[in-house]
């Protein structure tokens, strides 16, 4: 009897399914890496991860703790310096899917990772800022966002600060499509025109519950499916093959 999926396992499995058939993924350590590895072992063998530290084709002997962990380099297929990674790979539009996280997201898929409350000059809660998120948002073909908390304070009508804006479509500027998938513990949003609409709910969750937890007027796809719960095989690969020490599956 397989133990039921934790929130992290659920999010990882849902993200991995969305990666089916994709190829070049820009990912951070933890959930996005686990999702890409799970996709690789469950039907998308050609998927490749590029890390912000410039490592491509990593074959780490163990689970890395950060994107700059030297365990990622030993045995890797390549390491790019940052100007080449940001200039040629990201701005050069070589990324199919970029994974980003944030403190807040709005219905158009813009992200805030800079500050909550107060003003920019005197924020109540100062967060780490962009890192490379602005560039990934601008130039990855598509962006997947995973939010661990789905509340009116995290899925908001108006961001406290627009760190990484959804591409505006102006000539000569950002080239990507922006956020096409938003994955939360309550469900998955997909992109319709310029808006994120609820396309599936987690088993046991109702559309009304999602609406109550969402800070923007919720738009719902024509049909909202119940997401298929993580299968015993997906959970087995996650738990026994990818993260047996439960470093990231806490």
């Amino acid at each position, binding site marked *: 009897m397989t133990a039921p999926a934790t929130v992290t396992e659920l999010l990882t499995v849902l993200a991995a399914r969305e990666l089916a058939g994709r190829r070049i993924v820009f990912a951070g350590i933890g959930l996005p890496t686990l999702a890409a590895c799970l996709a690789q072992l469950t039907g998308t063998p050609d998927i490749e991860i590029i890390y912000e530290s410039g490592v491509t084709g990593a074959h780490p002997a163990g689970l890395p703790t950060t994107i700059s962990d030297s365990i990622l380099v030993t045995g890797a297929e390549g390491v790019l310096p*940052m100007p080449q990674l940001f200039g040629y790979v*990201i701005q050069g539009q070589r990324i199919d899917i970029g994974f980003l996280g944030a403190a807040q997201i709005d219905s158009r898929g813009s992200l805030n990772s800079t500050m909550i409350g107060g003003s920019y000059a005197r924020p109540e809660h100062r967060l780490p800022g962009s890192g490379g998120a602005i560039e990934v948002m601008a130039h990855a073909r598509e962006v997947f966002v995973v939010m661990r908390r789905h509340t009116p304070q995290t899925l908001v009508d108006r961001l406290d600060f*627009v760190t990484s*804006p959804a591409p505006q479509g102006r000539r000569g500027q950002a080239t990507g499509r922006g956020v096409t998938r938003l994955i939360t513990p309550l469900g998955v949003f997909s992109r319709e025109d310029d808006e994120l609409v609820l396309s599936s709910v987690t088993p046991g969750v109702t559309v009304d519950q999602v609406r109550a937890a969402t800070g923007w007027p919720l738009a719902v796809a024509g049909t909202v499916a119940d997401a298929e719960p993580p299968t015993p095989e997906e959970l087995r690969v996650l738990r026994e093959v990818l993260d047996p020490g439960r470093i990231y599956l806490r």
Partner: protein
Amino acid sequence: MSADRVMTLAGAIGAFVQPGMTVALEGFGHLVPTAAGHEIIRQRIGGLTVCRMSCDMMIDQLIAAGCLSGLVSSFIGNSSGGSLHELRRALEGRGDRVVTLDEYSHGGMIARYAAGAAKLPFYPIRSYDGSDLAAVNPSIRAVTDPYSGDVIHVVPPLNPDVSIIHAQRADRRGNVQAWGILGIQQDVAFAGRRVIVTVEEIVDDEVIRADPNRTIIPSQIVDAVVECPFGSHPAPVQGYYDRDDAFFRAWSDRARTEGAVTSWLETHVWATADHAGYLDLLGPEALGRLRVGQAWSGRVNYGQHLRPAGPAPGQPEAGRDADREAAR
């Protein structure tokens, strides 16, 4: 050819870092010049504007020490180890430290260093359209592309008074070799008006010359080279030691309490004479846990010139002729 640029860390920091300067301390979670940051703290050099793309606890330490008044950065968390509470206290207006933040994205910082290194007036970047960062930072501007007529954002060059990086090894003149995650090391060195490089080992010229493609910084632009084992701790150095992850994870809790960083500096930096003293304090057991095993690179053949030496275009070089003789 014989310019020997080897200095002590105290000597190099004392000679080149002056109060009020703009100083880059770079290393993207790897090859971080932590020991150099600590020496700045030991010498209590104040009023610095520090450039560091991806921050870590060294920034908390420089703030608590009263050395840092400005920060040029694109990520102000503690690598991936939680918040930098000393920095947050300053930016959120709690406590008595004031830090001016000049903020970009990684792409923006890279562009600034690239412009600085190439002595360009600005560098175009296609990612700030619609970002509040461009609205709050007057240094991020928009210009008209003279070719297409489109609008594009630009960032100004960044030329630190002193650029400080860490690397695996160098020769005594300062030809610097590095491998693993190279981050922005080469670019920030070329952007700096002065360059200090701390290395795990100073090696013989022959070691460098056996693998010239691994040289990321030529000696011509280096002012001081300092041998400084474990100079990147708690960040890793590929092939030398691992990241001290426990140290990273403990930092966020430690720095949460106001005054705690200053206490840490008292015992670990101000009470230690130099980096060797800091390492003694950590103890051989803690450092031993960071040891790595061996995974040597393959070897490449650079080739040896076999044809007889023709008339040289410039002055004949005795050493080169001798090499050719040996090759025959």
